[in-house]
């Protein structure tokens, strides 16, 4: 309560409006509904943030007020009322299921299909006490993660919640936050900058090859994803890290709007491999419910020979609006984007990448696999820009769409801007259908209709699935099959 009292004073000192506002509610763990400067101050105070960060949030908020919601994406949804959202609530601890018996059986069925161990299922489903059980070494993955954390510290790797980094490593956060995705970048990035409440921070020191895939750790912690997540990863010279965000297990989240920002900074001779598996609630087959996933992800290759690869498997969310991008500033730097986007029923996805070539001999590869089933709409939107100084820069884009049934749509919108005389840009695109012939062939060999579909679609996605960390590739393959259930017949 001492902390809370201080917070009240702190908040009161920065804003006299509080007198008339919700100050009496300060001990509650949820801010009043809606968004205002007060709310931004409230969040910052709750997080006990330094002045500079509050100022940055406020600038972002004020800028956001001047912006309009983008409408160029090929997605349709009712207008979002930004005053009808809670922007701060402490982690939910009440009303957790007491055991797996109380968890939605449909959710458990999916866990089973994915082959997730029982203990892990409890954590993912938010069963009360599951984490406690986990920590005392019953639950393998978590105890492994604890061991890993010690190893990370030994190597000098900083890996912690971003709010912790603000407190313990303010110089790093202040230097890099907003340096790749400024708050002025776009509507949702501005909103995120003003109100973000959680996320991860990772710093790999010079010359360090992160001794483990950060995926194992993440699989567990991803169980509580925030609505406005902010992730910042910095790979210093000659370092390497592989990071996996998200989870193959489906997440039920009450928050409909998710607007995350991910910033990656890659220095000279360093490499970041960033993999995402996104399986949020897509809504029912009539398009009721489901998450709006409006994300800004960007990597800056600042030094020579820097390398970044984005690998994403997107099967969830009602609407996905996401373009993980690479700014290839350092000479010889490399950007890669490997994507599988599956939309079924009424889902809509408008996703792709931006490859901004600034340095000499920079190269980029884009492999996008879009799968549409049901009445879904799936759009690939990608920009390849070759700057004036991007001598001998190269891009190769392969954009394949697969249609299942005749009520869905696939769209490809490539933008190419070239100012370099010596750049090479290649774009290949195909659209195909899963043929009746292929399904019959598989079925004749003994596969059920759904197994046949899963096999064919996995074959279509193979090049991208291969890019995922081993341990997730197998689950992702199963996920591909599961997300297309009900798409045949």
């Amino acid at each position: 309560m001492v902390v809370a009292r201080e917070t009240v004073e702190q908040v009161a000192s920065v804003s006299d409006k509080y007198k008339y506002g919700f100050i009496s509610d300060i001990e509650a763990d949820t801010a009043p509904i809606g968004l205002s400067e007060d709310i931004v101050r409230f969040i910052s105070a709750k997080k006990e943030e330094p002045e500079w960060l509050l100022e940055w949030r406020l600038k972002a908020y004020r800028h956001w007020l001047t912006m309009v919601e983008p409408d160029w994406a090929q997605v349709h949804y009712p207008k979002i009322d930004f005053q009808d959202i809670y922007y701060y609530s402490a982690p939910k601890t009440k009303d957790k299921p007491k055991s797996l018996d109380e968890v939605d059986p449909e959710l458990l069925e999916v866990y089973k299909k994915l082959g997730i161990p029982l203990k892990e299922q409890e954590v993912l489903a938010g069963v009360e006490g599951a984490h406690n059980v986990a920590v005392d070494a019953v639950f393998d993955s978590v105890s492994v993660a604890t061991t890993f954390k010690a190893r990370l510290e030994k190597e000098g790797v900083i890996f912690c919640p971003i709010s912790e980094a603000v407190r313990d490593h303010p110089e790093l956060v202040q230097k890099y936050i907003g340096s790749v995705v400024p708050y002025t970048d776009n509507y949702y990035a501005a909103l995120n900058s003003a109100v973000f409440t959680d996320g991860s921070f990772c710093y790999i020191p010079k010359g360090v090859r992160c001794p483990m895939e950060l995926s194992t750790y993440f699989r567990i912690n991803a169980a509580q994803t925030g609505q406005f997540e902010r992730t910042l990863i910095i790979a210093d010279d000659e370092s390497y890290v592989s990071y996996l965000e998200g989870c193959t297990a489906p997440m039920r989240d009450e928050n409909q709007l998710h607007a995350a920002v991910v910033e990656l900074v890659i220095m000279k001779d360093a490499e970041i491999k960033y993999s995402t598996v996104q399986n949020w609630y897509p809504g029912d087959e009539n398009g009721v419910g489901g998450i709006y996933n409006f994300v800004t992800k960007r990597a800056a290759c600042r030094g020579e020979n820097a390398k970044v690869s984005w690998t994403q498997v997107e099967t969830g969310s009602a609407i996905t609006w996401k373009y993980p991008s690479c700014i290839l500033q350092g000479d010889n730097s490399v950007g890669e984007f490997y994507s599988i986007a599956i939309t079924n029923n009424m889902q809509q996805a408008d996703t792709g990448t931006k490859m901004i070539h600034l340095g000499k001999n920079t190269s980029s590869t884009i492999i996008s696999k879009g799968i549409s089933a049901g009445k879904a709409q799936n759009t690939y939107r990608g920009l390849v820009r070759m700057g004036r100084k991007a001598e001998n820069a190269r891009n190769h884009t392969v954009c394949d769409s697969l249609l299942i049934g005749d009520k869905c749509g696939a769209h490809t919108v490539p933008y190419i801007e070239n100012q370099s005389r010596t750049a090479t840009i290649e774009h290949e695109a195909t659209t195909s259908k899963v043929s009746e012939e292929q399904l019959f062939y598989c079925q004749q060999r003994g596969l059920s209709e759904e197994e046949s579909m899963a096999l064919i679609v996995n074959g279509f996605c193979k090049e991208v699935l291969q890019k995922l960390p081993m341990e997730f590739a197998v689950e992702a393959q199963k996920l591909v099959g599961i997300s297309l259930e009900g798409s045949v017949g």
Partner: protein
Amino acid sequence: MLEIKDLHATVGGKEILKGITLSIKAGEIHAVMGPNGAGKSTLSYVLAGRDGYEVTSGEVLYKGENLLDLSPDERAAKGIFLAFQYPVEIPGVPSATFLKTAYNAQRKARGEPEVDAMEFLKLIREKTKELGIKDDMLKRAVNVGFSGGEKKRNEVLQMSLLEPDMMLLDETDSGLDIDALKIAADGVNRLRSPERAALVITHYQRLLDYIVPDFVHVLADGKIVKSGDKSLALELEEKGYAALSAA
């Protein structure tokens, strides 16, 4: 093993099979010959249960069970195998993966334990060796970039792995040179046993030099117009289908 009684079937509303009656006992090999458009491939698709091939009347009993009630994968698990005239390409799926998935799906459907990757590899290596097929084919995506001969050999490989009771071969000889033809025939002959039967559909007599049938049937305009022993095939080769239809 297979009893086809007065089978009528349509494709896209057009009647292709106009009353076929045929009885195949275990241990027998039957050849069905006939001109293009006679309904040979339709017969094989109807038996395998392809969508769009609609049975309008008649019945098919397989081991005493109504075959037409079963889905294609159920038929496969019960031992019906169709070697396709035009094997289908499945990009990105290695042949080994395809074969293992099919093998285990059938075992599962029959309530048998599935085999793991190591066991399967051992099994498939035996088969490729027997048939003189290079293991390299197992790594390639199913039928993608295969020559006509390779595709047919892949069909035979699948068949010898799945060990069906009822083999349906739809123009397995088309597009094969003589060496490939021998390999294909060899695969079928290896599976020949008193418990198994085969229906060999072909346009030319040549395949029947290597897979010697017990019975030969001539299919024309959706009906079996003549049946006999293997000498009928030679007669057709000599005189052609036209002479037969005229007779």
